[in-house]
């Protein structure tokens, strides 16, 4: 949320249409493909608008490093990375504070649906590579990760999908794109479980009244359904 808003991004909503023509409660186009990394145990490629992410799962397998083993359950290791060419300014390779934090919240967003106790002392490696970034990278990655885990045959009590609710020009909107994220007022990534719509990830930066927060949660609950559909369709297509 920069303070210098370029002229062309001062009006982000006009006649209830957003700059890319979407309605306020409309997701960007979604495309999910399963099995894109042959050497992995599970994998998925996802495009949500211009955000493109590759996800691979390796495991369950021997846990490494060994001092991190949990004798009671599998450990989910998550590594989120923006590839160097995924944004306007080149991203230096290697972990950053931001990528470490996202790896952690992504892990928490997925752990509660995986039956980790079925694989004591093992490790499941989840790699999230952002190929192209145009807002919503962590939400997009989580949506793909859940599909890749299913593709790897890892037992889960439900799928997890994620999107963002934002505030732009004082209005709530679903699934922000790049300029909306950069020049809007509020961004709230949120992840939910398919079976009960409980929340496994929620972060917010910006400004929300109590009422706006409540409405946002309701909007998310509705908006997220097409993502669950897309996840299921992609898995179905793969197994056909």
């Amino acid at each position, binding site marked *: *949320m*920069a*303070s*210098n808003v370029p002229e062309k991004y001062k009006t982000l909503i006009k006649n209830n249409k957003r700059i890319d023509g979407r309605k306020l409660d409309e997701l960007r186009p979604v495309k999910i493909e399963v099995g894109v990394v042959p050497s992995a145990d599970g994998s998925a490629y996802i495009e949500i608008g211009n955000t493109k992410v590759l996800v691979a799962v390796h495991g369950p397998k021997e846990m490494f490093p060994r*001092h*991190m083993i949990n004798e009671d359950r599998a450990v989910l290791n998550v590594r989120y990375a923006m590839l160097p060419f995924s944004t306007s300014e080149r991203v230096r390779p290697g972990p950053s*504070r*931001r990528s*470490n*934090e996202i790896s*952690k*919240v992504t*892990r*928490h967003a997925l*752990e*509660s649906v995986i039956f980790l106790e079925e694989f004591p002392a093992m490790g499941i490696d989840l790699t999230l590579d952002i190929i192209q970034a145009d807002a919503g990278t962590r939400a997009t990655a989580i949506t793909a990760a859940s599909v890749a885990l299913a593709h790897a045959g890892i037992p889960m009590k439900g799928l997890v999908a994620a999107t963002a609710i934002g505030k732009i020009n004082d209005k709530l909107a679903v699934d922000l794109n790049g300029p909306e994220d950069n020049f809007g007022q509020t961004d*709230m990534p949120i992840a939910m*479980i398919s079976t*009960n*719509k*409980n*929340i*496994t*990830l*929620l*972060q*917010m*930066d*910006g*400004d*929300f*009244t*109590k009422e706006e*927060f*409540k409405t946002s*949660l309701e909007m998310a*609950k509705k908006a997220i359904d097409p993502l669950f559909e897309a996840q299921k369709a992609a898995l179905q297509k793969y197994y056909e």
Partner: protein
Amino acid sequence: MTLLYQNRQYIRNNIAQKREDRRTNEQFRDITIETGIIGRAEGSARVKIGDTEIIAGVKTEIGKPYPDSPSEGVIMVNSEFSALASPDFENGPPREDSIELSRVVDRGIRESKTVDVEKLCIEKGEKVWMVFVDITIVNHDGNLIDAAGIGAITALLTAQLPKINEDGTVEREEFEGNLPITQIPVPVTSGLINNTIITDMSKDETECSDAIFTVTTIENENYCAMQKAGPSELTEEQMLKIADIAQKESKKIRAAIKTAVKKHKV
């Protein structure tokens, strides 16, 4: 030191009836806020919440602005777990906790535009003030995010910008006025333990918790930052309830911050 399994089960089973220290579910421990504790820092604060203690210090440097925001100063919030605070910090996961703590407090200050960074510009495209807020955990008995957040904003509110000499060097023993602070964000963190919502969790309670939710509120009661942590899910109702608690509790804490800052100025 990690909790024994038995203690863990005991806390979880009894949390709905009573907390270890007999607080009510939404009750904070005593909070004390001291200012001006480090003479070398441009601003500083010590915050205690029960046995949890943090020190926050503000330092300033002159630096070059980022190319994409040539007329804005830079603010960075950094938290470190000192080895003082606990012997477990060496071995692994806590480093991740440290990064999350740091990021949450940093975003809470930066994204909420608490500091008017445009007023930190000295010479457009060439020189701006870089403001560092460093937070050290001295004793860890849970709820570090709230303690760190309170410490950071208090240290910023009492901080002064050093004078710049005519030759451009910084005169560290004279000052030119306060930092341009626009609001007082206050984080309030609650957790879910065995389906009971508990605010200001101790270290033991944190280790027993299923999910954690931090909600930061500004003076007009709006929310400016939120962060869910912990492996378990939360329902919509639980989140709304925790957000309500944050609105209520943050008022008392903000009042305490203002009192501490006022005392400092006298």
